[in-house]
C-alpha cells in the first residue's frame, strides 16, 4: 500500500526527520492561501500514487501566491498515468545546494533490509544502479541490531557525503531505518534529500510503501488506503477471498493456486492467445467463491472466451462444478467456457457438468488451445 508524499512526510517528521513546511490544498484558492501563510517561494506538488510526477508537469515552483493558485488550477484534475490529481501539497521551496538519495528496501536474496545512500540524488535509483552502480553505497543491517551509528557513518564515507553534513545524514539514515521497521515498510525513500545553502539537510520528497500483510498492525497507516480506478476489481476480488489481476487480453482465466494460474496464462500465450486476467480462487474454494469468480471474469467486456483450469487438491472438482452451474442457472454467458478439471473429485465435477453449455478438455494444453481458438 502506497502513501502520498504529504502522508509519508508526516510520518518522517514525527520521527524527527526535517521536512520543509507544507500543507495540502484541494482547491486553487486553498493553495493560494497556504502559499501566503507559508511564505514564498513555494512548490506546488500533485499528490498521486505514481512516480514521475515532475516529468508529467505535476510539480511546479511558484514565486508569488497568484502563481501558486495558477499552478494548483493546472495541476488539480490533471491526469497522471491514469490517476486524477485531487490534492496538491504546497511546500516552502528549499534553498538547494546539493541533492542526495537515501532509501531502504527489502533485499530478498540477503533476507535483510538494504539501506542505500548516494550523492546522485533526484534520479530514479534503478537508473543509477544501472548506469553508475559504484555511486550507491549499501548496508544490510542485522534486524535485531538495527542501523547502528558506525554503520550509518560508514555509508556516508562510502557514498562521499560532504564532511559538514556527515553526522546529519548519518542520523537521518538511522531515523529512516527506524521508520522503515516501525511502519512495516516495503520501501521508504527520501529522493531527493536536499543539502540546503545554509548546510542543513531536509527531505525533499518522501515515498513510503507499506506491506499489505502488515496493515492489521498499522491501523493508522491502513486508514490512508485509497483504491485506484483500475484496482476496484482487484480489491473486490480480495474481499471475496481470491486474487485477481486485470490484464488486457481476450481469454478470461480462472484457476486454483498462484503457480498454476501463472502457468495457465503461459499456456494461453503458448497457444497464440492472450489472457484477460489472472484469477486464483485459492485453496479449498467453495461453490460461492467459484460463482463470484466467474461473474467477475464474465463482467469484463474484453473477454471472448473463459478458460477454467482446476487441479483439485484441497479444492474439489464438484464444488467448482456447482459454482459454474450456479452462474449458468441465472444467466447464459455470451462467451464460450472451456474447462479442464483434474484431481480431487474431478470425475464428480465432470458428471455434474454433463449437458451444461461448456467445452471440457483433458489437459491444460488442450484446453488452452481450445480457449484461444474460441476467443479468436
Amino acid at each position, binding site marked *: 500500500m502506497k502513501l502520498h508524499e504529504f502522508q509519508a512526510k508526516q510520518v518522517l517528521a514525527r520521527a524527527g526527520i526535517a521536512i520543509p513546511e507544507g500543507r495540502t490544498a484541494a482547491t486553487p484558492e486553498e493553495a493560494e492561501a497556504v502559499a501566503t501563510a507559508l511564505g514564498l517561494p513555494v512548490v506546488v506538488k500533485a499528490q498521486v500514487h505514481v512516480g514521475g510526477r515532475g516529468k508529467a508537469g505535476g510539480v511546479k515552483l511558484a514565486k508569488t501566491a497568484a502563481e501558486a493558485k495558477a499552478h494548483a488550477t493546472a495541476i488539480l484534475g490533471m491526469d497522471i498515468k491514469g490517476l486524477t490529481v485531487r490534492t496538491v501539497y504546497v511546500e516552502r521551496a528549499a534553498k538547494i545546494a546539493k541533492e542526495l538519495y537515501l532509501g531502504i528496501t*527489502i533485499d*530478498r*536474496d540477503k*533476507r*535483510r*533490509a538494504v539501506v542505500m545512500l548516494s550523492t546522485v540524488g533526484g534520479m530514479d535509483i*534503478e537508473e543509477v544502479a*544501472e548506469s553508475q552502480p559504484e555511486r550507491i553505497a549499501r548496508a544490510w543491517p*542485522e*534486524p*535485531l541490531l538495527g542501523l547502528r551509528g558506525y554503520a550509518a557513518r560508514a555509508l556516508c564515507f562510502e557514498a562521499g557525503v560532504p564532511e559538514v553534513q556527515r553526522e546529519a545524514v548519518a542520523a537521518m539514515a538511522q531515523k529512516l531505518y527506524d521508520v522503515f*521497521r516501525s511502519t*512495516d515498510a*516495503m520501501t521508504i525513500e527520501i529522493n531527493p534529500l536536499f543539502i540546503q545553502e545554509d548546510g542543513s539537510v531536509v527531505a525533499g520528497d518522501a515515498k513510503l510503501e507499506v*506491506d499489505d*500483510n*502488515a496493515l*492489521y*498492525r498499522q491501523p493508522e497507516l491502513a486508514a490512508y488506503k485509497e483504491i485506484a480506478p483500475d484496482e476496484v476489481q482487484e480489491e473486490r476480488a480480495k474481499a471475496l477471498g481470491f*486474487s485477481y*489481476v486485470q*490484464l488486457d487480453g481476450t481469454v478470461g482465466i480462472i*484457476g*486454483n*493456486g*498462484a*503457480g*498454476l*494460474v*501463472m*502457468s495457465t*496464462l*503461459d*499456456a*494461453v*500465450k*503458448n497457444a497464440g492467445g*492472450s*489472457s484477460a486476467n*489472472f484469477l*486464483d480462487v485459492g*485453496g479449498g474454494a467453495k461453490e460461492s467463491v467459484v460463482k463470484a469468480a466467474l461473474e467477475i471474469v464474465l463482467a469484463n467486456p474484453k473477454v471472448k472466451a473463459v478458460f477454467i483450469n482446476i*487441479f*483439485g*487438491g*484441497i*479444492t474439489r472438482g464438484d464444488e467448482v462444478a456447482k459454482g459454474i452451474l450456479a452462474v449458468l442457472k441465472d444467466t447464459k454467458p455470451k462467451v464460450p467456457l472451456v474447462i479442464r478439471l*483434474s*484431481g*480431487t473429485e474431478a470425475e464428480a465435477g465432470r458428471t455434474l457438468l454433463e449437458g451444461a453449455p461448456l467445452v471440457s478438455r483433458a*489437459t*491444460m*494444453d488442450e484446453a488452452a488451445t481450445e480457449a484461444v481458438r474460441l476467443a479468436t
Partner: protein
Amino acid sequence: MSVLVGAQTRVLVQGLGREGAFHTARMIEYGTKVVGASKPGKGGTTQDGISLFDTVAQAVESTGANTSIIFVPASGAPDAILEALDAKIGVIVAITEGIAVHEMLTVASMLERSMSVLIGPNCPGLISPGTAKVGIMPAENFSTGPVGFVSRSGTLTYEIADLLTKAGLGQTTCIGIGGDPIIGLPTPDAVRYLNEDPDTEVIVIVGEIGGSAEERAAEYMRAHGTKPAVAFIAGRSAPPGKRMGHAGAIVSGNSGTAASKVAAFEAAGIPVATAPSEIPGLVKKALAGRT
C-alpha cells in the same frame, strides 16, 4: 531415501484449528508419525487422540518431536516459528500465508543462528513419498522414485507431481518452499539438499517470476551439480509490476523476469520446459543421457 523428512520424522503440530486438524488427520492417514500438538492452556489433554502440550519445549521433551508443522494464522505464525526454533526443532514447516515481511526478516536472522531448517512460509510443505508427508498436498499425486523436486508453488507442484507419477517417474522428496519474498529455504538451498542426496538421480526445479533465487540455483548447479536437472518457470507471460497471486511473484524493474531465469538455467546446461507437460519427457531424457 529422502531429504529433510522420512521414516525418522516425528511431527509436532502447531495450530490444531479447523484447517490444522483436517490436514493432521490426512498426514496420519498417510503414515506420518504425528507425536503431539502444542495448544497453550490445553497441555495434558488430547484432541482427536493427539496429545496436547502447553509449549513446544514441553512437547519436544515428552515426545522427541524433531519436525513441526505450523498452521497458526499470520499474526501469530512468526511467534510459532520462533518458538520452534527456540526448542531446537530440526525441520520447521510453516504453511501459513500472509506473514508480514518484517516479521520474516527477524525470523530469518534467528534462523541463521540456528541449526534448524525452515520450509515456507506460504507453502504446501514437503513429502517423501512412502515414508512421510509433512504438508497439505494431496498424497495420491506422488509416488516413490528417483526424482527430487523443489517448487515455489502449491497446486502447480501437485500438477507436476501427477504428471511425473503418471509417466512412471516417482520422487525421493518434493519440497514446496513457498511463494513469499522471504522464505526459510530458498531454491538454491533446497536444490543443494537434493544434489547431495544419493538416492536422488535427477532434480526438477520449478520456479516463478520474482527475486533471483532461480538464478542462484542455476549457478549452484553449474558449479556443484552432480546430477542432471530440469527446470520450469511459471509466469513467462506476466506483466511487470503486478503481483501474481504469490507475494513474491512480481517483476520489479529489470529484476525477477522469467527471461533472466530461463537464461540462467540454459547457461548452466539445464533444459527449461515451456509447459508443465514437457517436464516428464525432459526428465526421462536427462536420466537416459547420464553417463
